[in-house]
């Protein structure tokens, strides 16, 4: 609330802007909070399943860093893009990314074929190229579960499913909400600064008006 009894329209506008920014910020905070609790629940379940797998394992076997593959390759990768709505984080399986890319390429090739409408040797070559792309896109990445052996316990498989859910669904959303919150924080601070400046500029005029009121 302003300390001045009479607010100028500019200060009122700025106050309204700050209020709407705070409203948006609180919505983001609520989103962050619910995502946080989902993350905690999932993480607890993952830990529980890993502990169960270790408990059920043969003597001396522990599903931990001794089993890590020293040449592992990421199967799930993140993708960062920015747009008018801010920064977007997403995590998906590399195969999905590849097949999406090859699908895009296939569509592109189909468009070119449709435009040419000439079933000649070049077209056949194009088909061969497409087949190679499909083969490339179809190479199945190694399942990370394999580094813990061929016959892995059910609990470890459950932990994997939950970890995938966490990495693909919760983590990117949380990171995105955090980034958006940071942006809104900057906007709020800026608006507050502008309002403080406007209030400082208004101060002598308001004091004068108040004095006039007292005299009259």
């Amino acid at each position: 609330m302003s300390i001045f009894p009479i607010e100028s329209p500019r200060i009122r506008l700025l106050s309204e802007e700050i209020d709407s920014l705070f409203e948006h910020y609180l919505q983001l905070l609520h989103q962050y909070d619910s995502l946080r609790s989902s993350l905690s629940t999932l993480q607890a379940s993952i830990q529980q399943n890993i502990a169960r797998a270790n408990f059920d394992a043969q003597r001396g076997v522990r599903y931990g860093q001794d089993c890590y593959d020293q040449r592992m390759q990421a199967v799930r990768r993140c993708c960062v893009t920015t747009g008018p709505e801010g920064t977007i984080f997403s995590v998906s399986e590399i195969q999905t990314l590849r097949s999406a890319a090859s699908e895009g390429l296939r569509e592109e090739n189909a468009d070119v074929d449709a435009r040419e409408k000439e079933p000649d040797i070049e077209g056949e070559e194009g088909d061969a190229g497409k087949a190679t792309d499909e083969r490339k896109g179809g190479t199945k990445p190694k399942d990370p579960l394999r580094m813990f052996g061929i016959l892995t316990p059910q609990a470890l498989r459950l932990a994997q499913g939950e970890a995938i859910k966490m990495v693909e669904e919760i983590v990117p959303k949380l990171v995105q909400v955090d980034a958006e919150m940071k942006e809104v924080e900057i906007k709020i601070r800026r608006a507050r600064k502008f309002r403080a400046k406007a209030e400082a500029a208004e101060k002598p005029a308001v004091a004068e008006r108040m004095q006039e009121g007292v005299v009259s």
Partner: protein
Amino acid sequence: MAAPASAYKDRQFLAVIGDEDSVTGLLLAGIGHVTQPPDSQKNFLVVDSKTDNAAIEEAFERFTTERKDIGILLINQHIAERIRHRVDTYTAAFPALLEIPSKDHPYDPEKDSVLRRVRRLFGE
């Protein structure tokens, strides 16, 4: 203001600094990556009671500053607490930093850097 595309276009990996079970869980999801030799750089660090703070700080520095292929860095909250001065002064947009709970240390909102920022904004 949007960051230039060069700041994020190659950031395709998730990195993790955590205890053994947290790292195992995330590696099960398939985020683990070891670069080609002779570098053979890992995108994860397993922290135990013997790991000193300097090693954690070095890994944090490597994932946030040196490597340009990390998009998201996950760190256990209790480990972040050990290098709190570094975590709280980290302001870069990429890689994004996220504190996650661990087996022995459940999520504590009091230590969450995001909620601390919220409290600061509301003037507490």
